[in-house]
């Protein structure tokens, strides 16, 4: 319920102290369109009446509990074993924030240490941190690391890296004397000739995504070699679930591997929260942003866990810190550790296989429809792009599907106008045969 920490007199006193006449004046600089609009609830309602009014306000929202989602572009429906919720909801896991009085929280530290170990194994990288906010900010932190370490100004980023992640990088780099150069894609994958031509000795890092934003598999190994030839860092942004089948970043020479880790045991919930995974080679250990947990022994030679290499962090190194992140995504990190431990290597591989099989099955069935054609001729994991022909528009298709309780592929036009009426579909292990039948049946009524 509403919490009012201050009396009217206290508020008036504070306003007077800072020299503004009202709360409204204090907030005047915030654009009106992002201001909270009143719920215009009548006064004098009971608790139950307020709840019911709010539920009715929220009722037009439709959640993934009632819709079957085939929406690509970064937020995917994945099944979450009940055990994850049961364990992660225990008070010991639910309440701890990132460790501040660190060494008193041995349980939390041990969990983060196990999490880091799991991420290292998954990515086949040597070092992983305790997590960052989300995949996009992890990628932006990788860019900062590369600029700082190399002293070079240029970042090469593929157009086939998620546009939201590229926006996050642009936001992070405001005020930096850095140059972001985008590399074009050809037939759904990054143009290696363009990469080779742009690879000069002023390049700090090359950024690629695997699978890329179109779901296509990129030639990561060759891209990495081109980056390394000019002494640039190779940064791979990956989709964790795909690593059950695809080569991990460590196997193709990535210096930094980042990912959105929400798919590891946490739900899609509006825009977040996300889980930023960040892993590097040993050589970059001291440049890693965020928190790192290490394992050591205490005075009595017992195994103990500790926050380590804290001299990288802002509370000690001030303006020369490797990052201004002094936290981690605690609860999602707990959930990811439980999820990965539960599945194990075999289960994780089977999960990836299910994604691959489901996506390829639906892709084939969609292509059989008269107004659907494939866009790229590339291997893919669980996302793929199709184009609608015969004057069928992506948004009309999605409207029809939504009426049938289905979220169709994302219309790509706003981000990639050259692709025309294309849609990015995703099929995960969560999609049932009945749901896929339902999609095909509904689409048959479109044109």
């Amino acid at each position: 319920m509403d919490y009012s920490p201050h009396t009217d007199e206290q508020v008036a006193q504070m306003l007077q102290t800072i020299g503004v006449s009202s709360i409204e004046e204090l907030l005047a600089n915030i654009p009106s369109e992002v201001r909270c609009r009143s719920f215009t609830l009548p006064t004098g309602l009971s608790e139950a009446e307020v709840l019911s009014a709010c539920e009715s306000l929220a009722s037009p929202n439709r959640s993934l509990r009632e819709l079957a989602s085939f929406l690509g572009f970064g937020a995917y429906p994945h099944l979450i074993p009940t055990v994850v919720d049961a364990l992660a909801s225990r008070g010991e896991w639910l309440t701890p924030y990132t460790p501040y009085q660190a060494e008193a929280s041995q349980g939390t530290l041990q969990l983060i240490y196990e999490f880091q170990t799991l991420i290292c194994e998954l990515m086949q990288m040597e070092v992983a941190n305790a997590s960052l906010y989300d995949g996009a900010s992890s990628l932006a932190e990788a860019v900062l690391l590369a600029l700082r370490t190399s002293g070079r100004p240029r970042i090469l980023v593929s157009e086939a890296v998620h546009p939201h992640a590229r926006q996050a990088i642009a936001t992070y780099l405001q005020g930096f004397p850095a140059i972001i150069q985008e590399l074009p894609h050809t037939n759904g994958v990054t143009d290696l000739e363009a990469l080779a031509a742009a690879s000069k000795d002023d390049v700090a890092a090359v950024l690629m995504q695997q699978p890329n934003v179109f779901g296509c598999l990129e030639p990561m190994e060759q891209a990495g070699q081109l980056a390394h030839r000019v002494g640039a860092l190779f940064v791979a942004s990956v989709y964790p679930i795909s690593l059950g089948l695809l080569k991990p970043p460590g196997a193709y020479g990535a210096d930094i591997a980042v990912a959105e880790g929400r798919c590891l045991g946490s739900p899609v919930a509006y825009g977040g929260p996300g889980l930023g995974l960040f892993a590097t080679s040993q050589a970059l250990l001291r440049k890693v942003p965020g928190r790192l947990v290490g394992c050591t022994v205490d005075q009595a030679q017992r195994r103990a866990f500790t926050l380590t290499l804290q001299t990288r962090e802002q509370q000690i190194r001030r303006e020369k810190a490797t990052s201004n992140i002094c936290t981690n995504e605690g609860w999602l990190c707990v959930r990811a550790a439980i999820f990965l431990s539960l599945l194990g290597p075999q289960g994780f591989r089977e999960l990836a296989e299910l994604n691959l099989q489901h996506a390829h099955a639906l892709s084939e069935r969609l292509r059989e429809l008269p107004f659907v054609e494939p866009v790229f001729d590339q291997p893919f994991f669980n996302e793929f792009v199709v184009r609608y022909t015969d004057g069928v528009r992506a948004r009309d298709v999605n409207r029809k599907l939504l009426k049938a309780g289905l979220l169709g592929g994302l219309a790509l036009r706003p981000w990639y106008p050259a692709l025309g009426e294309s849609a990015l579909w995703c099929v995960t292990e969560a999609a049932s045969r009945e749901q896929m039948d339902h999609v095909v049946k509904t689409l048959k009524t479109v044109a």
Partner: protein
Amino acid sequence: MVIPKDFRYTKTHEWTKQEGADVLVGITAHAQEELRDVVYVELPAVGKTVKQGEPVAVVESVKAAFDIYAPLSGTVARVNESLSKSPQLVNQDCYGTGWFFAITPSQPSELSALMSSDDYTKLITGER
């Protein structure tokens, strides 16, 4: 505490020692005692041009990090590579094998303007 007579010093606790055309730089016994166990030293790139008073290296103990400032303007001629594997040399032998880097001075007169061992002794006794 050892404060060699023939070295010259800065207020920020670096020592300097002429060696041929170059000037060796390290941190004083007082500085390494205050720092406690040094766990990492970040050294400048050889060939880098530095200005007097500019931060050029970083020394880290377990829970603190400090900048090391260039006592003189010039070019970094050499760095002590062995510190990357053995940062404890800074504690064990701060005036010898624990040196940080060598500068080829561009303005040699800056050297004579640095503190003598007597002045530096006064500075650190004052600090206590």
